[in-house]
């Protein structure tokens, strides 16, 4: 099959999670969903509108993909507007994965900005599933406003399962009693053993630079911090060239990249 030919998938369920974001669960019309690793993404095609990369946020009980999509432009809007039973095209999963098992025996800091949590959800799930293998686990979530927080119930569940969940918002409402401001401020405060800590970071590029930078400042080795980078992607399979970042083709060599590598690349303006 041609690598650009999508497989038909059905929208099994569609749940709005906040004003501009929905959770879709997608199942193939035929056969089973190919397996995926945390951090990988699919290319989802909205018929007649276009195709975009979306992280896989989890697997449903029926074996489908859970994908969380924010409506920012034409394709994401069309996907957010699909209804149960609609047909979409899916290619993938593609890209590099978060090496969660490599963090065994270590403290773990997971830092998510905005929709970045969608990509990190499988990481947290993996950590929680094997809670005993890891030291302290901190999940820091930055979001615009309390209303825009993703997966609030799961955050509670994870907290009960022994994850130190901390949420900070940019624009608090009057009921908000938690922290306000940047994710980095929370990283300053949390407790971990820097030389034995792994960091997983995903969010807007400025947030990732700040968060990873703060982890490094506190003594975490850049090689133990991994980020998920975003670039324009038209193919996901290394043929369209759009996702280049210096030596990387992010659809093949990313999106998950070690901060050791990414730091130098992100430091060059407009690379």
């Amino acid at each position, binding site marked *: *099959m*041609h*690598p*650009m*030919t*999508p*497989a*038909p998938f059905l929208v099994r369920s569609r749940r709005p999670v906040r004003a501009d974001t929905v959770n879709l669960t997608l199942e193939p019309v035929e056969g089973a969903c190919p397996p995926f690793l945390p951090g990988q993404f699919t290319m989802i*095609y909205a*018929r*007649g*509108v*276009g*195709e975009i990369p979306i992280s896989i946020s989890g697997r449903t009980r029926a074996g489908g993909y859970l994908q969380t999509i924010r409506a*920012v432009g034409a394709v994401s809007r069309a996907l957010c507007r699909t209804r149960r039973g609609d*047909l979409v*095209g899916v290619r993938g999963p593609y890209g590099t994965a978060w090496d969660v098992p490599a963090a065994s025996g270590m403290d773990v800091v997971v830092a998510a900005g905005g929709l970045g949590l969608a990509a990190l959800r499988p990481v947290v799930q993996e950590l929680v599933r094997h809670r005993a293998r890891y030291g302290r686990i901190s999940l820091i979530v930055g979001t615009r406003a309390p209303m825009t927080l993703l997966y609030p119930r799961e955050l509670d569940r994870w907290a009960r399962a022994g994850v130190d969940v901390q949420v900070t918002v940019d624009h608090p409402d009057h009921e908000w009693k938690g922290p306000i401001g940047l994710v980095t401020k929370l990283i300053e405060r949390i407790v971990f053993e820097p030389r034995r800590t792994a960091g997983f970071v995903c969010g*807007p590029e400025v947030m990732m630079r700040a968060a990873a930078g703060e982890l490094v400042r506190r003594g975490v080795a850049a090689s133990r911090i991994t980020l998920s980078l*975003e*670039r*324009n992607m*038209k*193919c996901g*399979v*290394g*043929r*369209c*060239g*759009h996702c*280049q970042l*210096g*030596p*990387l*083709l992010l659809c*093949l*060599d990313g999106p998950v990249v070690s901060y050791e590598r990414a730091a130098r690349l992100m430091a*060059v*303006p*407009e*690379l």
Partner: protein
Amino acid sequence: MDVVVLESLDPLIEELRSAGYTVVGPTVQDRAVRMAEISSAADLPAGVGDVQDPGSYRLTSGADGMLFGYAASPDSAKRFTQPPRQTLVRMRDGAFEEVDEGAPRVALLGVRACDLAAIAVQDRVFAGSRHPDPAYRRRREALFLIAVNCAVPGGTCFCVSMGTGPKATAGFDLAVTELDAPHRFLVETGSERGGEIVARVPHRRAASEDVHAADEVSRMAAVRMGRQVDTDGIQHWLPAAHDSPRWTDVASRCLSCTNCTMVCPTCFCSTVEDVTDLTGQVTERSERWDSCFTLDFSEVSGTHARGSGLARYRQWLTHKFATWYDQFGTSGCVGCGRCITWCPTGIDVTEELACIR
């Protein structure tokens, strides 16, 4: 039967045509050497030469009666390996149909060594990747390649620096060296099907004078390169020079017009377009040539990762000569000089690299 001599190309062209190939070779059109369908050697540009300089291309009269006395044509093989537009998928009645645009049986006559190297680069991108493209493979298999060894390199050529020419050493079905006094063609066979075709046309075994004469053509060509590049360590020093002041200088001359990438035989970047018909019943996705010089190319999160002309030129040059190694284990440049000739403002990559170093 490895090396033979043909008196004329006509029987070869005839044989290819009867084997079901459309023979595409150099012709003169609109004051340039263009690759187009030919039916006999009479369609080839006899006695035509060219003068290529940064931003300038002119035909001249070349050596009398010689058919291949010019350098790289504006047309590389890319149009045949990677068509400028291809429909990928059609969707109707809730099903995705993969569109097979077919693989035309084309015999490309006059492919230069640099072009063969470029095809090898594209092979890595499209066929050798983790996600191989079966349509590309079919197109490649349907392409019969007849190389012509360069006798007269152009003013913008630097294949010797890139280790890709001027003599074709691999990747061809047949390789021709045009010899004069008397006018004849030394033909090397590079594949089984190449050998089968040659066996069916009148030929004689090459004598050692023929072979020597051909060697001499390639030797002379190698010393007449228009330009050169020092590629030593380029994979490292070029990316490291991301803040060289030269980028600002070249950005002031670069039009971001994309011509360099479009004429480049290895540049493979593409974008995908969706079209719907008026009733919304049929939708199609197609892929077309794109370029890192366009703004949309790097659009992300509502901005452009490479918004400035400087960043776009730097991306192109750095990718072509350095980061290509990281991604595909080879240089992206084969030294054909097309980007220099066809850059409207005459930006010369060899000069830019020398200045940046």
